[in-house]
């Protein structure tokens, strides 16, 4: 690259070739004016050409994503200001929705394949910045509106359920920049300030305590009896007493009272804290059972929590409620899959097999039920059936995201529902 004579090319007949070389070196495709392009895309999206506008905006790779973000932020403010006063709110929502859809399409619906780990992290950072910018655009307005509510609902489904970005949803330390710890403001807090009574935001808030914990404990078959729970709380109280001592954090002296708790006690204290969080979440979840639109999801969590606290019959009741009524494929799958899991832990193997098979009828070739069922069959000397299941799973690409992955990051995504409602509201 260093040996190319760009100036020479520019002054020769090869001018257009030089521009092409320059554009390639800079990672840009030749284009007339990025600002005009963005305005056209926003106009097109506002006219209802949603898919076309989003796909036309998709950057070809992670490097162009940063440039797109910059162009959007620069152009959208002018585009909103140019609107008549009664159209400003709608244009703000259009911009926010457009940003959200581009981010979703880039990350979930494809994006450039073969990203390295560092590139993936950088993409997430850029997308997070874009969404937070759009969120700020809406929060500047006076009274919250129904369209804004739909935008927050869609954005949280995307961030919490599909990106699984716990820190972005709930806030927290976001690493070190210029030797100072950075705290990321949680997107959920923004949503709840604008819509404090929205039940779905309360559900996502309750999932802060269940996130990863349910999945990990259900997966590991870790169950806790009442007696074990009481013992863990007692040990946690002892650790807390030690932490309140004046000598906490200082080198220990010879006194017994300041003896440092061992690793086993610290681990027990941590588990006690996590389990107490689950109990607290269960209280909040029970208060949401009356909300019709959330009932099945609430029952998934309550069933998992019952399973963890050694109440298999209670867990089965919750999961069976889901079997009867839900419209969501993801929730229906998880209800049956977790029913299989609780039966397996409970030693009811034929019931477990029925649960896993019922899950696979809803989402054929799902990796979670396939692996669980294949393992169960194989260990019971039904090898050929087990292997046929795995062969079937690997024979094609999965038809949809495995709901178990959604469960680990909170729950089933309702992104399609909310983004469709938002689009309809913008028409």
């Amino acid at each position: 690259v260093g040996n190319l004579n760009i100036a020479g090319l520019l002054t020769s007949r090869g001018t257009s070739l030089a521009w092409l070389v320059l554009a390639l070196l800079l990672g840009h495709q030749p284009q007339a004016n990025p600002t005009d392009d963005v305005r056209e895309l926003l106009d097109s999206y506002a006219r209802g050409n949603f898919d076309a506008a989003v796909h036309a905006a998709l950057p070809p790779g992670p490097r162009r994503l940063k440039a797109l973000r910059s162009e959007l932020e620069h152009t959208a403010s002018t585009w909103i200001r140019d609107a008549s006063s009664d159209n400003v709110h709608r244009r703000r929502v259009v911009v926010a929705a457009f940003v959200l859809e581009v981010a979703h399409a880039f990350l979930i619906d494809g994006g450039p394949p073969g990203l390295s780990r560092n590139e993936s992290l950088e993409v997430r950072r850029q997308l997070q910045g874009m969404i937070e910018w759009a969120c700020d655009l809406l929060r500047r307005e006076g009274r919250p509106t129904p369209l804004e509510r739909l935008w927050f609902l869609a954005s949280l489904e995307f961030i919490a359920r599909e990106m699984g970005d716990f820190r972005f949803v709930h806030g927290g330390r976001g690493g070190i920049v210029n030797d100072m710890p950075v705290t990321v403001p949680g997107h959920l807090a923004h949503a709840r300030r604008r819509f404090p009574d929205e039940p779905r935001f309360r559900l996502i808030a309750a999932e802060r305590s269940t996130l990863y914990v349910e999945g990990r404990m259900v997966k590991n078959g870790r169950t806790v009896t009442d007696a074990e729970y009481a013992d863990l709380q007692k040990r946690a109280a002892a650790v807390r007493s030690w932490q309140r001592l004046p000598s906490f954090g200082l080198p220990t002296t010879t006194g017994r009272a300041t003896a440092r708790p061992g690793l086993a006690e610290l681990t027990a204290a941590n588990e006690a804290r996590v389990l107490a969080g689950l109990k607290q979440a269960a209280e909040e979840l029970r208060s949401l059972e009356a909300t019709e639109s959330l009932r099945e999801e609430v029952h998934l969590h309550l069933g998992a929590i019952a399973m963890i606290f050694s109440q298999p019959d209670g867990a089965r009741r919750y999961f069976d409620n889901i079997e009867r009524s839900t419209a969501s494929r993801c929730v229906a799958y998880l209800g049956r899959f977790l029913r299989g899991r609780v039966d397996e832990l409970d030693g009811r193997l034929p019931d477990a097999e029925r649960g896993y098979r019922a899950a696979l009828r809803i989402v054929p070739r799902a990796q979670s039920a396939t692996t669980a069922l294949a393992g169960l069959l194989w260990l019971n000397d039904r090898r050929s059936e087990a292997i046929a299941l795995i062969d079937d799973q690997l024979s094609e690409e999965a038809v949809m995201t495995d709901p178990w992955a959604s469960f680990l990051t909170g729950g089933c995504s309702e992104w399609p529902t909310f983004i469709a409602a938002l689009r309809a509201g913008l028409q």
Partner: protein
Amino acid sequence: VKRPSLAFLAALLLAALPVDSSQEQRLVFRARADLVVVDVSVFAGDTPVGGLTATDFQLSDNGVPQRIELVSTDAVPADVSLVVDTSASVVNDTRRFWEEVRRISGMLRPGDRLGVTTFATQIRQVLPMAPVPIEVTSGPISAVGHSAVFDALVQAMLRPGVPDRRRLIVAFTDGLDNRSVSDPARLVEVAVRSDGLLNIVLTAGRAQRVLSDAAHATGGEVLRSTGGVAEMSQKVLDRLQRSYLLQYVPEGVPRSGWHELRVTVAKPGTFTVRARRGYFGG
């Protein structure tokens, strides 16, 4: 309960490797339904011990000593399954990944077969088991998502061996699992009964007990990565070149049920012997 046939057990064999001179007196592998074949590695400290003969080994099946023969690994072709964690720092360059697969294909002998599975959130069979040399076309290897380490290993170990072929699984992972439905107990349970010889190359972090338990249960081991996928695969194959294949027809024990195996070296010195813990008789 129907027990698996002993013929399955005849599949646990190696060989993608040239035979060293000390193994030349070994018998040719003979596939028989009642034959049990056991893959054995012997170490003095960390150093593989070569040059042992059949009389240097003692093997008991459910506590009953057996008459064993040493089999030439040269006679047994290998099915090599690469299981690669693409969620970790194992693979951060798709093009390089496929180049490494081509190199591994080149390390194997005519008659051997190679298959490749990758996993992050999703387990994908990117190259079905096929004879080498393989025609590898490049394809996307996503490096994002969670990591289903245990599920990927369970799925790899569930696959049956083919009679008269040794089945070798080489897994590359940092061992951090946050996506599987299989728990540690399931992983080890499956390993104990698997026909495959599991070797895990740990690319980062500390070796978890469950991973070494699973690998040891199959007669394999956990190695710490010091190079790329191809380089470490070569290292695994080199180590296995110095392993032994013992075969015997069980005598004095009922055929069905669980057979606990115990293999020792009857020579002066301190040896570590790695072999599968047992098998289910049909």
